[in-house]
């Protein structure tokens, strides 16, 4: 408790070392459900960024007034308020997208990422740190779901942001834009990240022992 991470540390940790989706396995519903194409993934990231930032800032401002046994209720109500704002905003300005995302915008309320950040960071630290943490975590979330969405959209439709990138002869792997593709892509991505972490953790030892071999690894 004595030395909490600073704003910069919080920001950087959110992007990869404590990536909410890939490392902490939080917020899996949107990560799997809205990643059929890049546009919906980015809209979702925007909504999460808005809700997480506002919820973190508000929680941080009222952190000294919070009673421990009521805090979860307060977090949930704060989040629900901002999710309603985001949902109404999307319905007004991006109607088509709001139809596509459907129930997954309201489901941000029960997205574990946001409650987790309110609990871990915002209810203990100052507004500035909480804001930086929210932005870092949202960028991490956005990167993770964009990675999944890019793979699924390119393999599933041959497009990227609706622009054709693969030759027309590409047989669209329709299964990638359907639910099974989400699970498969996400499973492989988790495996890839874990493998990268183990390789990176081993590398310094190998370089001391056999510097030549670390190139091949």
């Amino acid at each position, binding site marked *: 408790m004595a030395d909490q991470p600073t704003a910069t540390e919080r920001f950087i940790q959110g992007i990869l070392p404590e990536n909410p989706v890939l490392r902490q396995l939080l917020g899996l519903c949107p990560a799997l459900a809205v990643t059929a194409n890049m546009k919906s993934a980015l809209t979702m990231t925007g909504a999460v960024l808005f809700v997480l930032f506002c919820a973190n800032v508000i929680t941080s401002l009222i952190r000294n007034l919070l009673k421990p046994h009521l805090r979860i209720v307060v977090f949930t109500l704060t989040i629900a308020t901002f999710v*309603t704002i985001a949902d109404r905003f999307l319905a007004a300005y991006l109607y088509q997208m709001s139809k596509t995302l459907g129930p997954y915008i*309201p489901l941000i309320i*029960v997205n574990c990422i946001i409650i987790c950040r309110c609990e871990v960071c915002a209810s203990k630290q100052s507004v500035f740190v909480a804001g930086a943490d929210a932005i870092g975590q949202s960028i991490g979330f956005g990167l993770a779901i964009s990675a999944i969405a890019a793979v699924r959209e390119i393999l599933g439709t041959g497009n990227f942001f609706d622009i054709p990138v693969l030759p027309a002869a590409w047989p669209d792997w329709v299964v990638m834009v*359907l*639910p*099974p593709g989400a699970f*498969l892509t996400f499973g492989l991505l988790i495996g890839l990240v*874990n*493998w990268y972490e183990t390789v990176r953790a081993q590398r310094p030892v190998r370089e001391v022992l056999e510097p030549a071999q670390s190139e091949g690894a």
Partner: protein
Amino acid sequence: MSYLIDIILIALGAALINNFVLHYFVGICPFVGVSRRIDMAFGMGCAVTFVITIAAFISWAITTFVLVPGAPLSRWIAGFFVPAETAAGIDLTILSYIVYILAISSSVQFVEMYVRKFYPPLYKSFGVYLPLITTNCAILFACLTIMSNIVGVDDPSAAWDLGRSLILAIFGGVGFTIAIVIMAGIREELDLCDVPEPFKGAGITMIVSGIMALAFMGFTGVDSGLKKALTAEKPSAAARIEEHPAEAIIAAQKTTMPTAEQSHP
């Protein structure tokens, strides 16, 4: 009769065709977290089914009596403060998310206390999961589906009644239980397998769920086929004879073994 068909289709859709976990991706957290052993997975599934049913009942009542434009309760209360025409048009659907999440979490709290007091054995078997599933997406998802079928429909008589809502909730929970128990069974076997190190845990679980989702995609179209088989009886057969006599005769011969063939022309 058509009500019964509706119920059957909703039940099948929620449990198998559009399985909550494998099609809508809600409730993934317990699906990954509590699927190590079959008995635990089954307990979790039962607890979710129980809570989802209660939440569906509450959210149906709130939506119908308070939130929709011209709902009886909100109109009656507002009638004390504003003229009757204004009161009839009061639309509280914007509050739905806040109201639902409050209703869900408080009802789970009450259910937990009640079960602990009056049914200690039941509390021992799944009480530990109850607080965990307060923030389970599956619960809120069921409430939102019910809401969209009450608020979103153009024809007020097509809005879901309590029966449809409860059927959706119960069979959604059953579908969740089916998925998580199958997953737990596979994971018990996976412990004995030589899984590559980086994929241990969540990675292999996701890939296995992908394969399960592929299997569940086999149910796609069952609902439309069943609907055709149940509703397309004598009147439509007569209509078919008028349009395509030759096809209708072949179809008439096939009616002794109906269902799936009709969806594959």
